[in-house]
């Protein structure tokens, strides 16, 4: 093989692998991306049931109901709208009423959001950034003054 041919083989296989990877990436994006919505998005945009997405906001005060076994029901709110969520499993240590939370799952036909994942950062003063930003956009004033001396959050989170 000449130098040119050898280089051709190298470049050819490189390009082949790169295009394979691009195809994989495009395919994976179509299949696996999950959108983030707030409760008012869910109401306004009329999200279809059965579509997987992330729902974020605050755990509404007084909404947490522990049922039999390990199923928990609670409402996620951005103070403008509420969405009821049902989750079977162990909640993160810092799951509490009034705390920021991100859940992932699907909306049922009855409007109940069935989550299979609940995220809360492992820090008591933490607000998931999407939640904070979304709430800010909705004009919700965050009670950050409640923790005037709060340490900045710098710890990892628990997951379900």
């Amino acid at each position, binding site marked *: 093989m000449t130098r040119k041919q050898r280089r051709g083989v*190298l470049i050819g296989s490189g390009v082949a692998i790169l295009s394979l*990877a691009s195809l994989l990436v495009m395919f994976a994006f179509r299949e*696996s991306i999950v959108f983030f919505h707030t409760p008012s998005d869910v109401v306004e945009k009329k999200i279809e049931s059965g579509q997987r997405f992330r729902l974020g906001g605050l755990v509404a005060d007084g909404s947490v109901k522990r049922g039999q076994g390990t199923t928990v029901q609670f409402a996620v709110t951005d103070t403008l709208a509420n969405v009821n969520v049902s989750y079977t499993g162990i909640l993160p240590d810092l799951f509490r009423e009034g705390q920021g939370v991100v859940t992932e799952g699907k909306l049922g036909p009855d409007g109940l959001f069935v989550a299979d994942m609940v*995220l809360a950062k492992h820090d008591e003063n933490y607000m998931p950034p999407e939640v904070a930003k979304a709430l800010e956009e909705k004009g919700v004033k965050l009670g950050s003054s409640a923790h005037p*001396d709060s340490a900045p959050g*710098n*710890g990892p*989170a628990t*997951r379900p």
Partner: protein
Amino acid sequence: MIAEIGHFTLILALVVATIQMIVPMWGAHTRDARLMTMGDNAAVAQFVLLSVSFLALMHAFVTSDFSVINVAENSHSEKPLIYRMSGVWGNHEGSMLLWVLILGLFGAAVSIFGRNLPTTLKANVLGVQAAIGVAFLLFILLTSNPFARIDPAPFEGQGLNPILQDPALAFHPPFLYAGYVGFSMAFSFAIAALIEGRIDAAWARWVRPWTLAAWMCLTIGIAMGSWWAYYELGWGGWWFWDPVENASFMPWLAGTALLHSALVMEKRDALKVWTILLAILTFSLSLMGAFLVRSGVLTSVHAFAVDPDRGIVILSIMMFFTGGGLALFAWRAGALRQGGLFAPISREGSLVFNNVLLSVSCATVLVGTLYPLALEGITGEKISVGPPFFNMTFVPLMLPLLFAMPFGPLLAWKRGDARAVAQRLAFAAGLAVLFTIAVAAMSGPGPWLAPLCGALGLFVIFGAITDLLTRARFGDVSRGEFLRRVGNLPRSAYGAALAHAGIGVMVLGIVGTSAYRTEKIIALKPGERAEVAGYELLFKGIVPSKGPNYSEQIATFEVSRNAALVTTLLPSKRLYNAPPQPTTEAGIYAAWTGDLYIALGDQQPSGAVAMRLYFHPLVRLIWIGAVIMFIGGMISLTDRRLRVGAPQRARSRPSVVPAE
């Protein structure tokens, strides 16, 4: 007072770094030997000053000097000593100080061990290294001073986040930073080579040990983080494809590619331009990791305190070094003489294949990590890219790499004989397939990909052994001669084989726990039983207890198998005093075949306790594999030819085929 000394030495270190940035490079430019040697002394002085500064901060943490804001915000007098010490790098400011300390350490190491480096190369390397130091020292002093005081000093500190109070996490950051920052050496050498417009095999011999050392530290650092997440976060996962994890994984992938391409450059004088580019990119990815973790641009559960201003400064630092490095590369790379012809089927060819796959997979991780950010910037839509994306893109790219791994070391340089190598590997492959069929038959139906990946893992392990046996001419020579040859194999051969086998071991662990995990979420009342993967668990009840800085609720489980008591597990839920925060401590029993894992949830009004029960088959192999890789790296580093500071070409090599 001691904090002020720390602050002062930090400023002095900046001054020294500035001198080190300018003078030796000017000396290299004007060929003034005296100016060039100044870099040596400056590098050592800078390191000493940074050490004093670091020790001063450590002193403040150990003595709980709450008049220092950083200590007040991140420490507590009740904390055990080890966590007061690790608290130094458990926060943004202190961890940046650790970062520059390690940067200084590497600079000093060049000056001390680099006696026989060409003087101009050394001067330029030290100059570039100092430039990175100047940027980060300015960043610390201007935006994140760890020594800032508070008046009046609070009576007590706010404490370290309890889940960071853990032995694995205490040492996770130093290793991780040693990895990140270690790649700065490769970067500095690459920039120095571009400045000089000259690069040869000696350059690669110099860069390789540093890259290897950094790579080892990064490997073990990532593994520690994963191990910690596994037992501390309480739900048994070991890798989440979280943006912050990806931030550490991308430099690892690029660094692994760099290790291999530098090998081609050292042995065959080929792939020069590519190696230089990889060196620049690897360190750029490290910088990007720092940016992602500290700026708050990405939604991550691990990120440091969100501060956009600091983010912008780090972004500028990253842009400067990455952009500057790439610009210099574009301008000068053409001047580098290319050499070393090779056929596609050859050791070089296999290493190129390794490089292509590693860098492409690194690119897919990069896309997955940054895409949500880009999309939100452009359309305002918020999305998350989770494990499914990475499983669909990263895993398919790794499979051919694993398959090719045993072939690479067996192929000859320049032109290899694929058929002969395949014959040599036939036994290893057959063994792997047999094992897999046996295991698959025993464990029953599972996902089809799992046995395939398991077989690949075994193939990689057996392939590594085949490689060593072939080098020692197993079967071709008498037993005595074979043993003699085994003893005489270069340590780098053992190191490489071990590192490869480590990957195989890790793959087995990943396959075992991903495909064959048992998970149960149930609520039990005291006296009730549950069954997981053949283990019978009796929940005896919960009793309160007190630790040094927390109170806890400890549950007792009697674990038995086939009616024989195996062990007693004590998972607990802790509530720390400062900051008042609950954590979950998993109860783990490590059997040979896997881990039995219990994590507690909430107590219900009925008296039952929600809990998660897992059986993770082979999960420990993931971290054992990482440790094997680390040990492989260590053995390689002790090789005479790789020894730091001994960049002469090896004299005659033992007549082992194929020559390493």
